[in-house]
């Protein structure tokens, strides 16, 4: 297997700043933000609460525009949302509650003008991939929290975007379901060879999933504090000593953010 360092950068953030409109420059959510994501890489972003993790994701998704700097995807400047990026949202509010699981996945494909028969086939394929075969005709209200997030993942995967953007997708799930979905996501990532940009506040989650972990500074004017390489073999064992060492490394990096209490979860 080739080393990830050999592959070119797919996404490049250079000197990116963002602030909400009408806010003074001192309220920049992020400033001088620089990092890259390589093709096929699994990158997790962690950082103290309110550090702008979700903002970075929204910038990359094209939902927000940087106030300074540039974001390049394969060398071209990013212009709004696009089919090359698929987003898995935080909660089930993003699902269409009047549509069944399969119709939720199909809607995006319909918008993307995928032919009708192909829509159904592909939606079914990805629902199967996330383990929802047999549940495809249920409405979101009839599905458990974990299943709803699977629909969310299937919807983003079905668009066949190269880059998957995931905003704390498992944050609202119970611990058991969370671990199950993390393992499944690792397998899906390995099988589909997508690039994943994954925002989380859960360090164990980041260490079990990521190739590299971006640790952000405390906001406002946040940016990258550390980038920690996670070169543990997959599948990863959460009880492993190397896992524990990485966990502590990330944990200390976050805890060392000035003025911060040792606790930093949401």
């Amino acid at each position, binding site marked *: 297997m080739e080393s990830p360092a050999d592959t070119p950068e797919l996404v490049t953030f250079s000197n990116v700043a963002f602030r909400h409109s009408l806010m003074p420059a001192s309220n920049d959510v992020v400033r001088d933000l620089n990092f890259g994501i390589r093709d096929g890489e699994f990158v997790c972003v962690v950082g103290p609460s309110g550090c702008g993790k979700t903002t970075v994701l929204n910038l990359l998704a094209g*939902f927000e525009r940087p106030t300074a700097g540039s974001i390049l995807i394969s060398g071209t400047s990013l212009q709004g949302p696009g*089919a090359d990026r698929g987003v898995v949202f935080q909660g089930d*509010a993003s699902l*269409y*509650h009047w549509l069944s699981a399969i119709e939720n996945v199909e809607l995006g494909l319909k*918008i993307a003008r995928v032919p009708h028969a192909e829509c159904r086939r592909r939606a079914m394929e990805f629902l199967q991939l996330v383990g929802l075969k047999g549940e495809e005709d249920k409405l979101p*209200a009839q599905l458990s929290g974990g299943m709803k997030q699977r629909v969310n993942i299937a919807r983003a995967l079905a668009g066949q975007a190269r880059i998957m953007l995931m905003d704390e997708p498992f944050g609202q799930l119970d611990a058991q379901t969370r671990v199950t979905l993390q393992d499944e996501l690792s397998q899906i990532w390995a099988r589909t060879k997508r690039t994943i940009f994954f925002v989380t506040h859960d360090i164990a989650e980041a260490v079990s999933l990521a190739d590299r972990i971006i640790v952000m500074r405390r906001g406002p004017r946040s940016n990258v504090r550390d980038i920690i390489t996670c070169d543990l073999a997959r599948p990863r064992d959460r009880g492993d000593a190397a896992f524990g060492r990485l966990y502590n490394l990330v944990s200390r990096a976050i805890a060392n953010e000035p003025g911060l209490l040792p606790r930093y979860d949401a």
Partner: protein
Amino acid sequence: MTRVDATPLNDEVRPVRRPESFSKFVRVLKTALAILGGVLVWQFTSTVLVSNILFPTPGATFQEALRMAANGELFSDAGASLARIAVGFVIGSAIGVMLGLAAGYFEIARLAVGPYLQFFRFVPPIAWISPAIIWFGIGETSKIFIIVYGTVFVVALSTIAGVTSVHKDKIRAAMMFGATNWQIFAMVIVPSTVYHSLTGMRLAMGIAFMTVVAAEMLGAESGLGYLILSSRLWMATDRIFVGIIVLGLLGLLTDRILSALIERFAAKYRGYS
């Protein structure tokens, strides 16, 4: 092996489960008792507290209702009111939904229509009865016009509330597939808003009942409002009571039908919070 025996505890805690049909029976029984209580209070009032010429007894009212049903006048008056409500409600709801969707989603429509919605919201339908009669006469048109007016605002305002409460992630999820504004409108905004519009329509139905009675009192030759007002001239309080009770029953029935239809055909649009 250690036996973990939690069963007796569970059995203690678990409430006695009654069959579904039984609890439904209890519910019906409670409602029936409440109605019976009301009728008794009415009976007491009309026989002991006040003269039953001013306040007819339940029995006398019921007899009068039977008589009016037998000679058909009850049905023709109730039918006239219901027809006006139905026509006005359908037209008003259609306009209200379209107006609400447009004003909720399209900036230009919001700028154009918003101030008028906010302004006329405070002008009650009955304020329009006089001009409506001058413009359209005392025929059907003036009544329907007023019901349309009353319906439009309620439906439009709840539709707008629906549009503005669509979660931004629903819109973003469509945007990531390259949806145009029109696609977002048709595929996300409209279905997200359906339930709000329907709720507005249920409210509007109540307003339509109020409005039609007022309109029929001020200028009509048929309808329940006309029945109630004209009966005053001969002090026929029993006929007035019949009119009032029929109004209440019809309103209740209409609302029940409407909500049953919503549950039957639109439950999936309700969502969850």
